[in-house]
């Protein structure tokens, strides 16, 4: 007999044009002591299901039908009274620990209030219980920290506080909605371990909502896959990940970059695009393809960057060395990967290479020219033409007020002011086709495109100047896995056809493994080691690299 039974749960969002069914007839069961992974891409309705269980759906959405039975209680019988089960029977953890806590109440106050809401305890007893809880979730000096405000905790610690809050009234069901997405890999594994430990010790039923197949593979006992509000498949984790029955699950699993090997291309299950080979020939006609010379295209020498206050004040303290004495080279035609956790300085290096920031110390050589010392405007333009960048967030990297045509034509016109209008149009169409977009796209605005399509527009724009070096700053981390696979394939193809050199920056080790020839590992602005990809993954030298590799969630762990 399952502890939690979700029967025919549907959630509707009546919108202006149509009603969106965020969840439709979802049936899920969870047992005690078990972690159920709920996976799906963005918009699949996985979070909606999590919130619907305790009827915490934002306006104008509402639970339209279905029942949720907890033990032998149908908690959806009287939805207005569901408040008494919140916290008491069911705990919920949100994604972002930065915003989940009330900033002006101490964590003690928040704990005591929650405890006293549900349990009949005196303030003293509640305090003792809170401190025990804080100890249990791994917060040191709990008695002192009890009186601290949320901003005095780091992200990982905050998530522990959030967990303690979710568990303080001893609920039997824990819903964790992307609990580690906002956290770095090392913290992620700690939090996941904590959840696993608590599940075991407290015999909890846990629903772990995530998009990360690696996390699922390592934590969940069973998996439910969702797509467009519908439950696609549910079953034991190993079964789903190794022998998926549904096409969607298959494509999902195949899109996940493997951590243990390098593959040539991702298998796109439903549509393998064959056209792009021909399309790219068109752009090749325009492309001044440069033969690859065996040389270092980029040389980074003792690069350092410190931010003093009033620039990055929010994220770092005064005068932090964001990049500290980093040296490496990128050979022409290769893909060089830079990996590191947030704050490791990898994006800063990228921005210095494309000359968005000036380095505080050190030099960058591009094609044997020191680009950090260029003052001349026309020289700078020459250099700008050769290095382009693709950004992480496909939403902010395109100006929403400009049509795609204008976005792509801007670099063309800037670097070739004499281009005729027809030629320009042709150029734009060729570029669009090279990234597998239709010509019609040119007359539309960015908001009419999906994230993946936007990233393609971004790439088209970057290609417009015919660069030699393409800096990709986490180009896929904001995308769903299936889209990620497509974009990564596209990048690989383009690199091959256009003889591009790529600097690939990511926190995602499996992705880097698929994309890069050589990899540099960054920690706190320092370069730990640089080596060939396979070497790095098989025989890591630096302690930090070893730790990272060990902690990274591996989808393959299901086989072990």
């Amino acid at each position, binding site marked *: 007999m399952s502890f939690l039974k979700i029967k025919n749960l549907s959630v509707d969002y009546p919108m202006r044009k149509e009603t969106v069914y965020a969840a439709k007839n979802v049936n899920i069961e969870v047992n005690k002591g078990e972690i159920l992974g709920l996976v799906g891409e963005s918009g699949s309705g996985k979070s909606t299901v999590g919130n619907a269980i305790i009827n915490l759906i934002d306006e104008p959405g509402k639970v339209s039908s279905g029942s949720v039975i907890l033990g032998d209680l149908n908690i959806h019988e009287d939805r207005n009274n569901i408040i008494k089960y919140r916290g008491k029977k069911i705990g919920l953890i949100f994604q972002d620990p930065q915003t989940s806590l009330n900033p002006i109440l101490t964590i003690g106050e928040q704990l005591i209030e929650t405890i006293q809401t549900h349990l009949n305890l005196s303030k003293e007893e509640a305090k003792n219980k809170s401190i025990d809880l804080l100890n249990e979730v791994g917060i040191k000096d709990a008695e002192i920290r009890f009186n601290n405000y949320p901003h005095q905790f780091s992200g990982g610690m905050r998530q522990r506080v959030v967990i303690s809050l979710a568990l303080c009234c001893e609920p039997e069901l824990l819903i964790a909605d992307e609990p580690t997405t906002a956290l770095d890999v090392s913290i992620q594994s700690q939090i996941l371990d904590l959840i696993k430990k608590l599940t075991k010790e407290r015999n909890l039923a846990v629903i772990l909502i995530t998009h990360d197949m690696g996390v699922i593979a390592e934590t969940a006992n069973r998996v439910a896959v969702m797509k467009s509000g519908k439950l696609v498949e549910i079953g034991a984790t190993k079964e789903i990940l190794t022998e998926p029955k549904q096409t969607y699950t298959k494509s999902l699993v195949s899109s996940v970059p493997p951590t243990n090997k390098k593959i040539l291309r991702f298998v796109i299950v439903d549509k393998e695009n064959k056209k792009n080979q021909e399309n790219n020939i068109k752009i090749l006609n325009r492309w001044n393809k440069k033969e690859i010379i065996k040389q270092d295209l980029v040389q980074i020498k003792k690069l350092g960057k410190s931010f003093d206050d009033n*620039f990055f004040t929010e994220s770092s303290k005064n005068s932090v060395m964001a990049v500290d004495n980093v040296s490496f080279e990128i050979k022409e035609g290769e893909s060089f990967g830079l990996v590191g956790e947030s704050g490791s300085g990898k994006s800063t290096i990228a921005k210095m290479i494309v000359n968005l920031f000036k380095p505080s110390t050190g030099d960058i050589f591009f094609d044997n020219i020191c680009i950090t010392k260029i003052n001349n405007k026309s020289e700078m333009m020459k250099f700008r033409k050769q290095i382009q960048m693709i950004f992480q967030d496909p939403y902010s990297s395109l*100006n929403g007020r400009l049509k795609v045509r204008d976005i792509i034509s*801007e670099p063309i016109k800037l670097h070739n002011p004499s281009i005729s209008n027809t030629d320009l149009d042709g150029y734009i169409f060729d570029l669009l086709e090279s990234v597998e977009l239709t010509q019609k796209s040119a007359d539309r605005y960015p908001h009419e495109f999906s994230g993946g399509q936007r990233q393609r527009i971004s790439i088209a724009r970057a290609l417009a100047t015919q660069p030699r070096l393409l800096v990709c700053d986490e180009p896929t981390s904001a995308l769903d896995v299936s889209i990620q696979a497509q974009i990564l394939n596209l990048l690989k193809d383009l690199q091959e056809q256009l003889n591009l050199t790529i600097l690939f920056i990511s926190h995602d080790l499996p992705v880097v493994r698929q994309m890069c020839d050589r990899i540099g590992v960054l920690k706190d602005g320092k370069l730990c080691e640089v080596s060939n990809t396979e070497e790095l993954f098989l025989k890591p030298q630096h302690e930090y690299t070893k730790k990272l590799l060990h902690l990274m969630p591996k989808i393959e762990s299901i086989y072990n």
Partner: protein
Amino acid sequence: MDKTINTWDRIKDSDIYHSFIKSPTAIVSSIILFIIFFCSFFVEFITPYNPFDPSSLSLMEAFTPPSWTEDGLTKFILGTDGQGRDMLSTILYGSRISLIVGFSAILFSLILGVGLGLTAGYFGGKYEMIVMRLTDVQLTVPSILMALLVDGIARGLISREMHDEMAIYVLIFAIGISEWPQFARVSRAATLVEKNKDYVSASTIIGVSNLVIMFKHILPNILRPVLVIGTIGLALAIIAESTLSFLGVGVPPTTPSLGTLIRLGNDFLFSGEWWITFFPAIFLVILAFSINLLGDWMRDTLNPRLKK
């Protein structure tokens, strides 16, 4: 995606259009505003009277009550004032002055504020610090006070004959100078957000110059909040203008604005000639209220934070 998408379809498809169609207050207030704007700017063609041509006035017709009252004359729908001027025409002429001053002042402060805010947000550093410091100082000095001070200084500096001619410019400047910090703050904050968006970096990497980035890329993206502030600011500017004129430091009585009319009519409040002050006042309130309603609607619609 076969059909061609033209701009009108795009507008019809937009959330703003739908929100507008669904909001009766927005529709009603825009209609009222349209009528007021239209009548004020084409007043010469609408009313047969020119209240500022002294030779056309007859003092004996002064204090004629509105046409529906016992002593009213049909040719003066809203009656006449103490000089025999037709109230309706006077109000429309007055509202034109008020609107011109309001619009110009807001335009002035918008250009100044957005210019400063945009550059401050974009360039940062000491320049930004100075601009924001200035903004803070200016923001704490309330608009009315600022306007009074400017007017006072202008009175001291400009000779009296000049002052009457310059009054309207002084007023525009006085109100404009006190409203710009709003725009500077909003546009700076928005610029800071936009500046850190990757499309700006992308443009920089492509080699687009700072000026083009600021005005072609960032400016259109920060216009929404600026527009909201501008609309609400317009109402404030109109009220400020009428307040100053009411206090007697605004436009000269020879070219009365709504505030001047209220001040002049105020003397007749107890003598039974209520229409002389009542109609300009109610007109002013309707004008400001409509603009505010529209601004309020715009704020709710254009502020994505409040609709999820």
